[in-house]
């Protein structure tokens, strides 16, 4: 899941194919189609069918054990005036923004360290990636215990250094930052791994010649490392963003959107509407809008990335 968006959208796309190349490509395509068909069948069955169904339900007043009738775009109209929904959008965007940014910063720093040679590096890397491998629900439950304002270990640790106890996920003002802390803890390793991949391919020569020119560490980072890992950071951003937008397990298991609606993201609200209020029609409309939002943001990022990519190419000698 990590790697590959840029491949399609970076290297293959954007460049107009020459006529000769194009016919060649068509020929090759025929050869490879059979390899693709089983996956397409599976993907279609598990995504297109549910999607058609969701669209169909989104134009109906459909509650479990209640009505089921066509209402046109009424559900969508309701979304426009639903204050809880617009609030959830802001929560989602805020949550996503920091859940991308913080792992990005820490992940890059961690990668710079982990890239160096030191004893037991393999073991350290193994331990470092544990959080992203662990079961989110299980992790979330342990965090909940740690966040407890009176009995949790976090406030105890703060008290040791003289900071007064915090409300963490139990206070509306701190709930989203606290959840982002968990998200950052869990997903920093992913960003680091992607950046490590970038660092691994940087050739040694530029550094050597920079050293001969007397460049300092910062100069080397700024003018050699940074441009080289930038494309990888963009991949990390896109992957992290899709996941953060859809984040469910952690929020659901820790706060279920509370206190009040202070941490209610679109996904959590969608769950409440569909599975607590049993309003499947309205829930489907939310799902459709949510999906459009996720795709729109992701595509915007992809386009941005491609632009960046081309600027770099243009800038290259």
């Amino acid at each position: 899941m990590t790697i590959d968006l840029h491949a399609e959208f970076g290297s293959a796309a954007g460049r107009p194919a020459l006529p000769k190349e194009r016919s060649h490509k068509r020929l090759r395509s025929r050869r490879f189609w059979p390899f693709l068909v089983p996956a397409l069948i599976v993907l279609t069955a598990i995504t297109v069918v549910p999607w058609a169904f969701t669209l169909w339900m989104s134009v109906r007043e459909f509650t479990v054990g209640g009505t089921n009738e066509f209402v046109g775009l009424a559900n969508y109209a309701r979304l426009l005036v639903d204050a809880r929904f617009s609030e959830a959008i802001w929560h989602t965007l805020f949550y996503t923004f920091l859940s991308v940014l913080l792992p990005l910063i820490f992940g890059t720093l961690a990668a710079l360290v982990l890239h160096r040679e030191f004893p037991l590096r393999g073991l350290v890397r193994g331990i470092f990636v544990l959080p992203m491998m662990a079961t989110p629900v299980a992790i979330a439950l342990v965090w909940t215990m740690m966040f407890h304002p009176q009995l949790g270990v976090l406030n105890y640790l703060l008290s040791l250094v003289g900071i007064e106890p915090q409300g963490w996920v139990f206070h509306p003002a701190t709930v989203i930052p606290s959840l982002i802390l968990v998200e950052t803890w869990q997903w920093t390793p992913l960003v680091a791994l992607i950046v490590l991949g970038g660092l691994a391919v940087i050739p040694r020569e530029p550094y050597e010649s920079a050293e001969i020119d007397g460049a300092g560490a910062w100069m080397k980072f700024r003018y050699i490392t940074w441009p080289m890992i930038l494309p990888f950071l963009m991949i990390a951003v896109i992957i992290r963003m899709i996941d953060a937008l859809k984040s469910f397990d952690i929020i659901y298991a820790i706060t279920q959107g509370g206190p009040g609606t202070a941490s209610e993201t679109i996904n959590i609200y969608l769950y409440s509407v569909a599975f607590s209020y049993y309003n499947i029609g309205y829930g489907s409309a939310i799902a459709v809008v949510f999906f459009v939002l996720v795709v729109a943001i992701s595509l915007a990022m992809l386009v941005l990335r491609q632009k960046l990519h081309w600027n770099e190419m243009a800038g290259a000698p």
Partner: protein
Amino acid sequence: MIVAGGGSLLVRRLTLLLSVLAIVSPAILFFLWMLSLSLKYEIDNAAYPPVFFPDRIAWKNYASVFESNGFLSIFWNSVIVTGSATLIALLVGVPAGYAIARMKATKMAAVVLIARMTPGLSYLIPLFLLFQWLGLLGTLAPQIIAHLVLTVPIVIWIMIGYFETTPMDLEEAAAIDGASSWQVFRHVALPIAKPGITVALILAVIFSWNNFVFGIVLAGRQTRTLPVAVYNMISFEQLSWGPLAAAALIVTFPVLVLTVFAQRQIVAGLTAGAVKDG
């Protein structure tokens, strides 16, 4: 090296050591605390200031998880669901990744991407009704099929990345010698891509094993998987942080072991996949 500063060798060594400690401590401290919670009685778990090293160890937290009804069958359910979803994903995903990489089929990759962007929740109701209509509820099939939503895209993406990095000279040579596309794939491309398949397998296993959302609605009494079972341990009217932490650790344990043993492949695979664009 990349961020190496000035100063004496000793200072640099020390800085590196401290940085490494800073990087791994969040993970280490968290899992140690989780372990500690799982080994304490409730009264110590809810104590303040927190008890780090209890006087008595509550092995019974683990015993109670293993004794709780159907733990083994729940574990087995998880194994079957994750195993099948991963296997199917590899069977269809590896050839698909190969085809997309060789065809440079950008649009196809985007379609796969959209499957990944879809919020898992929006699959739930349609799939529930669909499976009920098919009479499959009560079996593990609904969850296996739902988990394909997670595993197939992962496998395809990893494999696209991998196949793009493998050299095509051999394949072309084989094709000129008259090998069929299948033969080229089976005997030339596949063996080279083994490390990529390993990574795809590991990640598919982890994502499927950890999945929680599908289980909430699609799993029944006999088809529950571990993450759902753990969440269900938050029992009403009873405090049970200890058993909860024990269960959480048990669920995560297989994945953690897999990570520690296969960290070399995971790290190498995740990074190597990204190499080609560099």
